[in-house]
């Protein structure tokens, strides 16, 4: 009898200890993730809640708790549809669409083109790659200035062309308020497309060679192989690229100011500059916060379904 009792005791304590361990093991991953998640919760979502609250107040230079209802939203609503003369907010939205669209589109197109070209077993890839990549290493503060200098018709490209005898050359976008935003886009594309190229190049190199062979046997031309087979396979790369590009487009701030020179005619306004100027320069923090809220909601409206579908699709 005694002999058989002992193992049972040992067994149960062992099992219990195992259970406690198991529980700790189950908890550990969450514990590890928790600090990051809490930081994000507080510093991103908490702050956004605060901004959301401010958008209902009359905060000016400093945060105020005096509620004014939807006043700020009504103001921005009015400004949204005020296109003659365009309110700064209207310009900001239009520019965001233009800039964001051009920036993301051309970065993708250029990045993909360069990646495909580089992927043709090119000699000197090691030299070419950093050339396309280096602009990202430069700070916007400087590249903006350099591009402004470069595009300035009085001292830059146009003048140089005239000096060299091509007197009919004309390129004055950077001083033409209507075209300014395109200059910002050019500088932005120049800066980021190399990065996108690197991502696509990586994506291309990751495509299984047998698939390409199969496509070739099926009689697809090189172009068709890329368009019908390889590019669709790289869909996840597009996801990452679009996330990174969108976030950069939204946050472009230094670049806009340094390329356009403080926004002449209010023509180079972007939501980020609008928010900044209302919050910090014009001491209308409530309006700035409202703009931030609307901006965030717009981003959410676009990104959340996209992220949702992409994350969901991967299943598991």
């Amino acid at each position, binding site marked *: 009898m005694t002999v058989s009792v002992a193992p049972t005791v040992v*067994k149960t304590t062992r*099992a219990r200890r*195992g*259970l406690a*361990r*198991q529980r700790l*093991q189950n908890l550990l991953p969450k514990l590890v993730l928790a600090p990051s998640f809490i930081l994000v919760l507080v510093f991103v979502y908490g702050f956004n809640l605060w901004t959301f609250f401010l958008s209902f107040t009359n905060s000016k230079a400093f945060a105020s708790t005096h509620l004014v209802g939807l006043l700020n939203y009504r103001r921005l609503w009015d400004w949204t549809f005020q296109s003659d003369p365009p309110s700064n907010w209207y310009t900001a939205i239009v520019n965001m669409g233009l800039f964001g669209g051009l920036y993301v589109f051309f970065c993708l197109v250029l990045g993909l083109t360069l990646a495909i070209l580089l992927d043709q077993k090119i000699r000197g890839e090691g030299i070419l790659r950093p050339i396309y990549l280096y602009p990202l290493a430069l700070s916007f503060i400087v590249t903006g200035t350099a591009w402004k200098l470069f595009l300035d018709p009085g001292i830059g490209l146009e003048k140089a062309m005239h000096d060299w005898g091509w007197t009919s050359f004309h390129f004055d976008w950077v001083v033409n308020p209507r075209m300014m935003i395109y200059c910002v886009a050019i500088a932005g594309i120049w800066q980021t497309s190399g990065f996108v190229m690197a991502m696509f190049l990586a994506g291309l190199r990751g495509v299984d060679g047998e698939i390409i062979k199969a496509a070739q046997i099926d009689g697809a031309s090189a172009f068709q192989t890329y368009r019908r087979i390889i590019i669709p396979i790289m869909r996840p790369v597009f996801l990452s690229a679009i996330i990174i590009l969108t976030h950069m487009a939204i946050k472009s701030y230094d670049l806009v100011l340094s390329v356009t020179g403080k926004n002449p005619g209010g023509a180079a306004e972007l939501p980020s500059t609008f928010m900044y100027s209302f919050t910090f320069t014009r001491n209308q923090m409530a309006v700035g916060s409202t703009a931030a809220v609307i901006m965030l909601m717009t981003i959410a409206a676009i990104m959340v379904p996209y992220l949702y579908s992409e994350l969901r699709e991967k299943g598991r």
Partner: protein
Amino acid sequence: MAFLEINALRKRFGALEIIKGIDLTLEKGGFLVLVGPSGCGKSTLLNMIAGLESITSGEISIDGDVINDLHPSKRDIAMVFQSYALYPNMSVAQNMAFGMEMRGVPKPERDKAVADVAKTLQIEHLLNRRPSQLSGGQRQRVAMGRALVRQPRVFLFDEPLSNLDAKLRVDMRIEIKRLHHQTGTTIVYVTHDQIEAMTLATRIAVLKDGELQQVGSPYEIYNTPANLFVADFMGSPSMNLIEAKVSKTNGAASIVVDRPGAEPIVLPAPNSADATKLRDGGIVILGIRPEAVSDPESADRKSKNIATFASHVDLVEPAGSDTFVVTKIAGKEVTARMRADADVRPGQNVSFAFNLDKAVLFDPQTSRRV
């Protein structure tokens, strides 16, 4: 009490039930093969034994200890993965010693154990290489070595041979079998390859959709499949399944296979079938393995129950050691296994001999064996 016991085991992911109440036992030193088509839950079951998947309900015990809540490393098991799961950043020796290192085994002891196992598996010359520098077969050996070094109570194999080419697979299969004989360890082995199951197992468990179809020795599984699924799944080429009618005269049942445009084949009921359960005019499915269908000359002489009939040959597959002859009976393809030198050509009318000692009957409604 069996060495490995699985009682009423269930696994649920939300509403989805993957393991639907499985009971299994395995004696010490046994070789249990879990076999079934992909998605049948065999890998999940193995992972549950390993402790890599949680258990929704039920119980698993090894040598009398319930291991449900034990961490994988505390279950005294070793596992060989389909992809081998060798740590790419470690040398072969380090890979093999990692488990002991984690358990705090002193280095000299680890080295010795690794050396011993390496010798057994003849991979001593590979000890300092990285997994990426190994061939597929070598990786497989290392993965087994890593498991062996632990000297576990139970070995778990998760389709360990499926990444190897055909020849290597056969070699490794033999290797594993030899290893099992030498060491006498208890093994649970997952595969979808029924030849592996047949050759290796002392006990086979056939799974489908999370349910156990049949458990038994390879012989039982092969010769007396419990249902149509097992009959169809085990064996290559698979069992011929022919729809037939029961005709009962004077209590003696015979099986009638109707052939459009030809006279019906009348066969005596196989011995394996419980004649009392056969109803006159009832529909049954006759299951007969290709090797029980042959030319009359090479039919089993010891058999008491041979029926011969002529049929049109559709296809001939010479397989070297045998020749497989395909004919159509009642719209169903029936494969016969004939001598390698059988002179049969497509289009001929040939006599086929059915060895009904080796035939089984199934009830099409329940799909169970009668």
